[in-house]
């Protein structure tokens, strides 16, 4: 049986609609109008034990609403939903003991106290036996390298340090299912990389099923073998992350630094990003990149050359555009 199973899952919110201005406000006092907004529509999803899934989509696409239904925070309007064999919005204690959720923008740590104080509360909340608690604290503290932060007031920690401790708090009770909502938001590139390493380790070492929502496509690309693209509340792609990028990341960027002044002109069909007598940057179709690079290396005095995947943000824009979507651009940060 799947760990998560949804069928025709739908969530509709009733939203107050007001005409602009004072007249509109007065009218709304006596004749209030509401509109129905469907945040998630007829959503089918199956997730198996141990999977690491990325949930991507632009702002307002419905991914957070979906996660909130899966965690029981909000009730679905219609459709079937089963998570770990439970109906989430029944909010059964046994269900809540088996998953954890980390929200990048909502801290679970006591700001004025130390991380150990929060860990103690979580031990009590989840009824973690003393032995397991100690072992998990030791394991995760070692894995995340945060031993010197345990008895420090949380408010004095950096965002990256706080996020590591948020993850430790969430993992103390060995959840089988972990929801991560923007866990790398606001972190610098190096900390993001570290965080990805930790998550990969948690997924493989503990076989924890992870559902990751992120605007940083690099998170999804490097961590999630499977991704689900959602927009307008509808699922528009569910499959291999690599396949998705293979489909849409169809170009490569070549950066060349010449050893001497040249009159180099990028090949026909390439999109030139930068050109000077000593340097050229251009994008061209993936299947031509190798051949063209080899030719340039033969014909010119090359000081340095690099071939990179097309910028991930551009790829995401293409994914949404190809699906006829209105991307709000932040998805490809």
């Amino acid at each position, binding site marked *: 049986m799947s760990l998560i199973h949804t069928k025709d899952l739908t969530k509709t*919110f009733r939203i107050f609609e007001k005409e602009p201005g004072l007249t509109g406000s007065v009218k709304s006092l006596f004749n209030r109008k509401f509109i129905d907004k469907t945040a998630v529509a007829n959503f089918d999803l199956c997730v198996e034990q141990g999977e690491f899934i990325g949930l991507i989509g632009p702002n307002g696409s419905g991914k957070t609403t979906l996660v909130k239904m899966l965690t029981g925070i*909000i*009730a679905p309007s219609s459709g079937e939903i089963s998570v770990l064999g439970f109906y989430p919005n029944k*909010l059964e204690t046994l269900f*809540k003991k088996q998953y954890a959720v980390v929200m990048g923008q909502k801290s679970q740590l*006591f700001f*004025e106290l130390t991380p150990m104080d929060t860990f103690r509360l979580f031990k009590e*909340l989840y009824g973690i036996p003393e032995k397991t608690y100690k072992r998990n604290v030791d394991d995760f503290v070692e894995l995340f390298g945060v031993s010197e932060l345990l008895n420090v007031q949380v408010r004095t920690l950096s965002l990256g340090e706080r996020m590591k401790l948020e993850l430790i708090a969430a993992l103390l009770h060995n959840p089988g299912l972990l929801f991560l909502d923007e866990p790398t938001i606001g972190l610098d590139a190096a900390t993001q990389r570290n965080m990805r390493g930790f998550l990969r380790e948690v997924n493989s070492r503990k076989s924890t099923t992870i559902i990751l929502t992120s605007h940083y496509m690099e998170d999804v690309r490097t961590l999630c073998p499977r991704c689900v693209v959602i927009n307008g509340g509808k699922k528009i792609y569910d499959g291999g992350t690599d396949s998705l990028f293979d489909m849409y990341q169809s170009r490569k960027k070549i950066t060349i630094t010449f050893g001497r002044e040249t009159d180099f002109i990028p090949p026909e069909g390439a999109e030139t990003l930068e050109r000077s007598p000593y340097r050229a940057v251009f994008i061209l179709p993936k299947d031509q990149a190798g051949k063209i690079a080899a030719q340039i290396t033969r014909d010119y005095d090359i000081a340095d050359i690099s071939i990179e995947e097309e910028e991930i943000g551009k790829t995401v824009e293409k994914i949404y555009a190809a699906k006829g979507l209105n991307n709000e651009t932040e998805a490809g940060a």
Partner: protein
Amino acid sequence: MKNLRFILLLLKLRLSHMMVFRLSFFGAFFADGTLFLMQLLSFSVIYGQVDAIGGWSRGQMLVFVGTFSMINAINMTVYFFGLINIPELIRGGGLDLYITKPVNPLFRLTFENADPGSVPLLCLSGAIIAYGLSVEGAPLTAPLIAGYVAFVLIMTLLYYDMELILRTIPFFVISAAAIDRLEGDLLTLNFKIPGIIYKGGFKILFYFIMPYGIMATVPTQFVTKTLTPAGLVHAVCAAALFTVFALWFWRFGLKHYKSAM
């Protein structure tokens, strides 16, 4: 047992949190004590010059004021500062973090912001009640004291129910600030006026719809042996019904929680 351990841990964390800020920690005792003295002053100005109000003697009035103060002090010490956060948690989506934890969110909210600064008020309220009883000169027996304590606790529960009901309304509306103000005004009024004074529509309002009128009145009537059997039944039924409704309303609200969509 598990719940008790959890409450004790919440209390420890709350104390640790308060002690981080020394001024705030010691200031709480001062602020709550000052508030209490102001209430007493207000009472003495109003009732200092009369011997009886609505058939109640000066001793009964003192017990009434002490009782209301006691109920309010228990409220402030135990759950007020937890419940008062609920509307903001609903509006800002902070309730998500409570809902996803394997403990009843209401239970945690009720006990996680206890305020030791209000503990002295419990002692002061007790002193006023004792003084009122001595002025009244009524003989006290163990069953009478036990019954009085039981009624104070039942009425504290009723007070809790009212606070919870009002703070559950934000699940359904955008802003409930006006309700907060209304509650404050009604409490101030009922702190000063014993329920026996209310007649007609006011009696219906303060005995049945928003029963602030019986909260301190009924325990006072009990300990001064003026509570009728009908009054006793009404008080117990009101507390039971409001508790059932408050808990149902909370659960109903949770089902309609939109999590700051």
